[in-house]
């Protein structure tokens, strides 16, 4: 552990720390952010009435729309001159959202990222290749500061230029790779084309995140890249990468509870769900000065495990994110996340890990098409052989998920490769 005093803190002490920090955060919001002052007044609550962690439930949720409505600086709790860094979301679905960090925020973020890296088996002596994008996206710089805080060597290569990524791994002896899981697979494919075997590289750990992925995908990545793969979670609104990380037991991601309070809610009713139940993940920040958030709805689907972890960390674990509420497909009444389909696909021996989902509405019916790349292994001169593959994939998906999908075999390397977050769904429905 990077900070055992905090990471293995007895839970009763941790809860006291949370309550103290929660009161301070609500106070800061009330005093410094007009948006929250009004929200809290309308809800009839003030920070002085927060006397237990249960009182958190009396505070209204914050949504992405609230952040957009207060673009660009309306959610900041400090004057802009106190802000030392600004990040922004891409804004592909509307107005971008902007987040600001004070010096202390950057400091805390670096600490949490250092903890995350250590959980992912990174040491001071490691060479860490950060292939997340640097820039407005929090991935690159978030990792970068964590690696420097830990004292390991960082290669700030950012995303893209895949051949150079591989060359750097070979020449510099990279031991830890940080990027999205889909980019990791793309790197593996590129390395193969270059005639480089990952087994000859020095990689031992990979810290992958920024998109939902399945355990099956992990197995595939670990096998092909010959490393131990860890899932990391974060989102820019709440901080960036380093909100939660898997330890060596890989049974969920420890949420850094000295910095965040997680809740799971029913996305439809807003009701708080009990531990173990699946629902939408909600975070309240506890240390952020620049842009504190109260009960921010992430739209990510997960559950919380309060059980003890053999690693000794006392912070609760969230199950790896299975999807986003806005990624959820409803195919003829059945709720499906792309990661569930991924899981089935990864389970079929011989399939390519690259896939794409296309949703269409034909005559009022939702049709889900799963595009899968043909591999050498699948292909023969017999058409029947290929049709049998289609049938196998179709019946596997049907038996696991209860929906019938259309399988389309496409040529290798025709599904777009991503150097950042993979886009898995093309939704052609006009609703």
């Amino acid at each position, binding site marked *: 552990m990077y900070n055992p005093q905090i990471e293995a803190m007895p839970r009763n002490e941790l809860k006291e720390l949370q309550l103290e920090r929660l009161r301070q955060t609500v106070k800061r919001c009330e005093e410094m952010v007009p948006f929250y002052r009004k929200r809290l007044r309308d809800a009839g609550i003030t920070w002085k009435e927060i006397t237990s962690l249960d009182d958190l439930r009396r505070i209204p949720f914050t949504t992405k729309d609230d952040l957009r409505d207060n673009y660009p600086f309306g959610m900041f709790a400090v004057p802009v001159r106190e802000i030392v860094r600004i990040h922004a979301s891409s804004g592909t679905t509307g107005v971008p959202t902007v987040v600001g960090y004070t010096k202390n925020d950057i400091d805390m973020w670096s600490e949490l990222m250092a903890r995350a890296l250590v959980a992912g088996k990174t040491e001071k002596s490691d060479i860490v290749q950060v292939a997340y994008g640097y820039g407005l996206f929090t991935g690159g710089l978030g990792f970068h500061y964590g690696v420097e805080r830990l004292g390991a060597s960082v290669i700030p290569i950012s995303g893209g230029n895949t051949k150079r990524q591989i060359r750097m791994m070979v020449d510099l002896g990279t031991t830890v790779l940080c990027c999205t899981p889909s980019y990791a697979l793309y790197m593996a494919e590129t390395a193969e084309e270059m005639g480089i075997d990952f087994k000859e590289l020095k990689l031992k750990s990979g810290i992958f995140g920024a998109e939902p992925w399945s355990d099956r995908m992990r197995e595939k990545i670990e096998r092909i890249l010959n490393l131990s793969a860890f899932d990391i979670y974060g989102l820019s609104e709440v901080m960036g990468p380093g909100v939660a990380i898997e330890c060596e037991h890989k049974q969920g991601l420890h949420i850094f509870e000295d910095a965040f309070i997680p809740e799971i809610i029913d996305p439809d009713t807003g009701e708080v769900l009990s531990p173990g139940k699946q629902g939408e993940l909600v975070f309240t920040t506890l240390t952020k000065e620049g842009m504190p958030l109260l009960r921010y709805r992430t739209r990510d689907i997960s559950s919380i495990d309060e059980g003890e972890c053999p690693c000794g960390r006392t912070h609760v674990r969230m199950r790896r994110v299975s999807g986003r509420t806005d990624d959820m497909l409803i195919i003829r009444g059945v709720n499906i996340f792309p990661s569930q389909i991924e899981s089935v696909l990864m389970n079929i021996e011989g399939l390519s890990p690259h896939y794409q989902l296309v949703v269409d509405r034909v005559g009022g019916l939702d049709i889900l098409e799963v595009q899968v790349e043909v*591999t050498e292994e699948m*292909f023969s*001169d*017999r*058409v029947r052989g*290929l*049709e049998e593959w289609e049938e196998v994939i179709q019946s596997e998906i049907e038996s696991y998920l209860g929906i019938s999908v259309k399988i389309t*075999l496409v*040529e290798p390397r025709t599904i777009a490769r991503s150097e950042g977050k993979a886009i898995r769904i093309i939704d052609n429905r006009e609703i």
Partner: protein
Amino acid sequence: MTVKQISVFLENKSGRLLELTRCLGDAGINIRALCVADTMDFGVIRLIVDDPEKAHQALKSAGFTVKEAIVFAVEVDDRPGGLASVLKPLVDQEINVEYLYCFLEKAGDNAVVIIRVEEAEQAIGALKAAGFRVIPPEELYSM
């Protein structure tokens, strides 16, 4: 006596067949016979070329999914019932023909048919015993 057939996976997208044939042309490979099997979404192109190894390499490095399959070529009398007479010995031996197609060139007055079965050697034996001429690969590639 068997012949190497090159099979290529093609999505049903316009221009793909053009790209494939161009790729072979650029590599100086001559197509001797061709057969397309297609479904709604994809097709399998089967080719007999003058240099199978070279064709395989050229297509593979152009990003096509390529496999080699073992087939054989047999001479068939160019008359009504000619093909039936070739199939008869195979049926007698319970050899299932997966597919067959015609070669572009004739061998003298006779037509040439490319046949794909599971048990190629057995089929060749049966046809030879029935008096048919199976064309050796070197001869076929250069026909």
